[in-house]
């Protein structure tokens, strides 16, 4: 069964303390992996799409990487405004391009 698992469920960091969030997936024929950020009371906001193992993408303090089994979201020198829930998602095997399976997310808190 297709599955996306994110860890840890919650992460507390001090401002400037770098860390990584993990997204592991079990899906046949990966067609892409997506990272989103979600602030309380809002819809998810797109961050990155990764398509193949070895691919990396960066945006400000965030860098996403992909292997054949998992993806990491590295946060370098985080700031309090990086506090949010980070979600990853993959297209369901055999499903339409819009049929995404999301993980439960990692809730990141960055303290000043």
């Amino acid at each position, binding site marked *: 069964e297709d599955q996306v698992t994110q860890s840890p469920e919650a992460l507390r960091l001090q401002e400037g303390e770098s860390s990584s969030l993990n997204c592991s997936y079990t899906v046949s024929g990966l067609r892409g992996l997506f990272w989103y950020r979600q602030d309380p009371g809002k*819809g998810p906001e*797109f961050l990155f799409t990764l398509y193949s193992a070895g691919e990396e993408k960066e945006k400000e303090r965030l860098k996403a990487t992909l292997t054949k089994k998992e993806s990491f979201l590295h946060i370098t020198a985080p700031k309090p405004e990086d506090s949010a829930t980070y*979600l990853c998602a993959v297209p*369901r095997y055999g499903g339409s391009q*819009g*049929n995404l399976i999301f993980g439960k997310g990692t809730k990141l808190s960055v303290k000043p």
Partner: protein
Amino acid sequence: GAGVSQTPSNKVTEKGKYVELRCDPISGHTALYWYRQSLGQGPEFLIYFQGTGAADDSGLPNDRFFAVRPEGSVSTLKIQRTERGDSAVYLCASSLTAGLNNEQFFGPGTRLTVL
């Protein structure tokens, strides 16, 4: 330009009632998606439209749920005989066209509470 908008932002209803949730996608976006998100969970796919037609409705949980997009723009998610388990945030997203390289833009959601 304006993002995806959803109305109402909150809806409280009683068990057994009928509700309609509306989504206005970004102008010009041909693909539209509905998800629902329960507390502490990621979004769960419900249905995806390409233009006016439902390209994939495999996520609709049962026949109480129905969605339309008659003119290829605004979409309405309809829930009949609501149950307490339907309580969740219903999210709508749109993308320029279908395809994995087209980012989905999400609206703020409608929080549905069934008493």
